């Protein structure tokens, strides 16, 4: 233990002892093998909290921003659309450098990200040179040395030319037995991740996307994120969908991987909205009833869910949450990934809020909650450029990188379904509360669900749950101090309500300096009622200005300062910061529940408005021009 954590432990122990000592004061003092403890005499062993409020602090104090879902030209579909950027360029872009897009447009983020996971499809990570004879390193060396010498002598061009001819005529025909000799794209990938992983400055996660489109386009994709480095990652080849399309087989692969390497993996599913009801189906992939074991396995491997990205927002759907006036946001709800139209009964098993609710119900019957996930987001960009800001959006794939007519291209087109590229959302990023910018620290935060999703802006959001938060906590200068001391952060659990107590929450949000002010903070509660039915309710808990809820209980809208023609807005409405302590007014200690926070910005121009202005065009009237950006925190669960 470090000195500061020992001190904190000491303080906690001292306080614990002090409380128990005073409780026992009327009875007998605590005794032990060496006699009766005298608090006065032993106080020196437990130093009091020091002068500096920052010493001894070991909880996260800074949000680390990243994208857990980036494709480069090394994904076959990205390459097919024209992406020529590889993982190297993608990481350089994420780190804040200027990079040329595949179409030759200079591109740069407004601010660097702190971390990224390059998740190219595993189907393309296989062997590229089937070298079947001897040791390819032997073969490479003489050439490399000759080439190097010629380069040094200033004859690089000639050397290169020779090499091409030599290799094209070189018939390699011997036997390969050991896969270590096969040069794989996977190994090239992990090498690049190592090159750009700089602990303390930027974290490059090793990862891949397992891209299951089961049953003709039902999106069951998962991003596998490694806690470890190349040495472990290279030991096992990623699972492809040629191996299997069943997520249960992916979990088996992950278990074998951990057993073999001693490392750690997690998987993040996305796009339930394109799974035609399969993502959160109430039976297994093969159609069998759910079991406790299945629920345990899913919960163990999938602690996070990617709730928003370019191909639509997956928090909830207006038909499932009809009284939620913010539910109709960037919806892709017509079909699955192959354009097969949705049928009734599918939507209920596609969105995060309903899945979280269903998870509570399943916990009652199975004993384990399989859908106990936190919320993260990424872009799923296939351009290599992780852009989620409205004024800097490079689109889903190279065919829809900025150009005057990109807004009207088809993204999905079948006889029954058309999705236009103006429907792309410029989203999203993940904010992680980790103590340091390293793979281990960020991965651990994702595993314990102390992270949140945003639709692009980098708002700072704190969300704590406990039994004793009050208005004073909302006024302190260090709300996190109160938060961690009196409760659990996002992703945490509350259990067995003490008599007469109801869950209280401390929630705070700070706007992104480059984005709009904040409109409001909401807390969304889902629970299973006494009859066993799932319920949900959205509470407005903090808001800007002096608005008051109307007779219908709804808070008036904040307004709209967006000047569409100039793709501009003013921060004259909303507030830069909101904080509050809130108490559940409808709590029943016998019922399972979850709470998560949603922070909503004032309206700002959507990427379509920026395109309209920059290319001097006019889009169809039905194309939205404004967007209300939001953040979704991971939930806090209550178990009776």
């Amino acid at each position: 233990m470090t000195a500061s954590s020992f001190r904190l432990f000491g303080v906690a122990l001292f306080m614990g002892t002090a409380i128990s000592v005073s409780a026992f004061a009327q009875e007998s003092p605590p005794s032990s093998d060496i006699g009766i403890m005298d608090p006065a005499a032993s106080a020196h062993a437990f130093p009091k909290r020091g002068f500096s409020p920052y010493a001894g602090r070991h909880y996260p104090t800074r949000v680390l921003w990243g994208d857990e879902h980036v494709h480069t030209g090394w994904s076959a579909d990205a390459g097919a659309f024209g992406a020529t950027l590889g993982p190297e360029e993608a990481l350089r872009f994420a780190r804040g450098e200027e990079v040329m897009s595949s179409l030759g447009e200079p591109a740069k983020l407004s601010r660097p990200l702190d971390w990224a996971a390059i998740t190219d499809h595993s189907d393309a990570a296989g062997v590229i040179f089937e070298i079947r004879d001897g040791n390819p390193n032997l073969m490479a060396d003489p050439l490399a040395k000759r080439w190097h010498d010629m380069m040094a002598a200033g004859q690089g061009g000639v050397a290169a030319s020779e090499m091409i001819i030599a290799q094209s005529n070189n018939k390699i025909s011997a036997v390969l037995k050991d896969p270590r000799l096969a040069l794989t794209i996977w190994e090239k990938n992990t090498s690049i991740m190592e090159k750009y992983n700089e602990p303390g400055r930027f974290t490059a996660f090793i990862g891949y996307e397992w891209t299951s489109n089961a049953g003709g386009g039902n999106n069951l994709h998962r991003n596998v994120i490694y806690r470890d480095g190349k040495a472990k990652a290279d030991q096992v080849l990623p699972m492809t969908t040629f191996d299997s399309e069943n997520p249960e087989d992916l979990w088996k692969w992950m278990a074998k991987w951990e057993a073999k390497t001693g490392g750690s993996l997690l998987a993040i599913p996305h796009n339930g909205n394109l799974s035609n009801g399969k993502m959160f189906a109430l039976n297994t992939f093969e159609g069998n009833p759910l079991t406790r074991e299945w629920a345990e396995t899913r919960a163990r491997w999938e602690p996070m869910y990617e709730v928003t990205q370019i191909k639509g927002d997956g928090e909830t759907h207006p038909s499932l949450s009809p009284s939620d006036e913010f539910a109709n946001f960037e919806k892709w709800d017509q079909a699955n990934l192959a354009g097969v139209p949705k049928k009734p009964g599918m939507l209920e098993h596609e969105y995060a809020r309903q899945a979280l609710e269903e998870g509570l119900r399943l916990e009652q019957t199975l004993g384990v909650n399989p859908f106990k996930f936190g919320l993260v987001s990424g872009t799923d960009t296939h351009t290599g450029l992780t852009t989620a800001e409205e004024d800097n959006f490079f689109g889903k794939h190279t065919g829809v990188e900025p150009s005057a007519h990109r807004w009207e291209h088809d993204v999905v087109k079948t006889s029954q379904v058309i999705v236009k590229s103006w429907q792309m959302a410029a989203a999203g990023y993940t904010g992680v509360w980790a103590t340091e910018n390293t793979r281990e620290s960020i991965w651990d935060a994702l595993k314990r669900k102390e992270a949140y999703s945003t639709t692009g802006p980098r708002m700072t959001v704190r969300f704590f749950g406990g039994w004793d938060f009050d208005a004073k906590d909302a006024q302190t200068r260090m709300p996190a101090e109160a938060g961690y001391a009196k409760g659990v952060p996002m992703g945490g659990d509350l259990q067995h309500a003490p008599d007469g107590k109801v869950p209280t929450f401390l929630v705070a949000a700070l706007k992104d300096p480059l984005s709009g002010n904040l409109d409001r903070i909401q807390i969304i509660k889902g629970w299973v009622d006494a009859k066993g039915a799932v319920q949900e309710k959205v509470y407005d808990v903090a808001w800007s200005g002096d608005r008051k809820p109307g007779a219908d209980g709804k808070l008036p809208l904040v307004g709209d300062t967006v000047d569409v023609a100039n793709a501009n807005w003013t921060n004259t409405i909303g507030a830069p910061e909101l904080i509050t302590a809130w108490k559940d007014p409808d709590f029943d200690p016998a019922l399972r529940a979850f709470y998560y926070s949603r922070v909503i910005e004032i309206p700002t121009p959507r990427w379509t408005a920026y395109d309209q202005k920059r290319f001097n065009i006019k889009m169809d009237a039905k194309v939205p021009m404004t967007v209300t950006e939001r953040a979704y925190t991971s939930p806090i669960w209550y178990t009776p």
Partner: protein
Amino acid sequence: MKRFWKEPLVHFLLLALAIFAAYGVLGPTSAVRPDSIVVTAPKIEQMAAVFAKTWQRPPTAEELKGLIDDFVKEEIYTREALALGLDKDDTVIRRRLRQKMEFMNDAGVDALVPTDAELEAYLKAHAAAFAVDPMTAFQQVFLNPQQHGDRVEQDAAAILAALQATPPADAATLGDATLLPSELPLTGKPTISQTFGQEFADALDKVAPDQWRGPIMSGYGLHFVHISKREAGRMPALSEVRDAVAREWTNAKRTELDEARFNELLKRYQVTIENLSTSSAVQ
């Protein structure tokens, strides 16, 4: 009739027949015949090895049969597809081939090891990319204009006076509560800008140290700042940034090599580019 068998031409033809027959029986194996497929033992071992590296166990007999059958199917489809010319004008195939050409280049570049002298020279030539940012350590007291309305100027003056008094008031008790950090240790300007915004970071540069000053503006409101330490930007020594410089040097070499090699290839081709008709719309 006997004369027929004595003709030299007949002898030659018979000899030719004999040679062909012998070749057919004794000649190279069926691998030469275009309609035969051989799944060699080494290939099977390789497939099993790849399976084992994915699943951490060897394939069962049934699984192996599946892999082999699938390979045969793939081989047949590949040959038929090539015969039909399906590899032509296929974007995915073309990009994969391009990628393989680019990977071949990489193998050579990765083998290059830069000397210290080369890295020093690169560091000098690209100083801006490796420069250590100027850093500032400071405390700040936040004033939320929305909470003070018309009184904001008076309140600001009062706070500044309190901070500049001798002895100075405790900064922690003044100003409005905020999620923004009240103190940052030596921090680079880009990070300050990420937290407080560019406006604040720029204004902070102009503030004199060692005294409470302000207020300066950010997108959040007003801030009084006390700069306790400043470190100018500087050029690091090679030992501090060796890995990063080596990485950038290698990348630069790769680009150089890519271009040199492509230019060599280009010399072997005659490229003709047609004119786009002026009547078609330009995207």
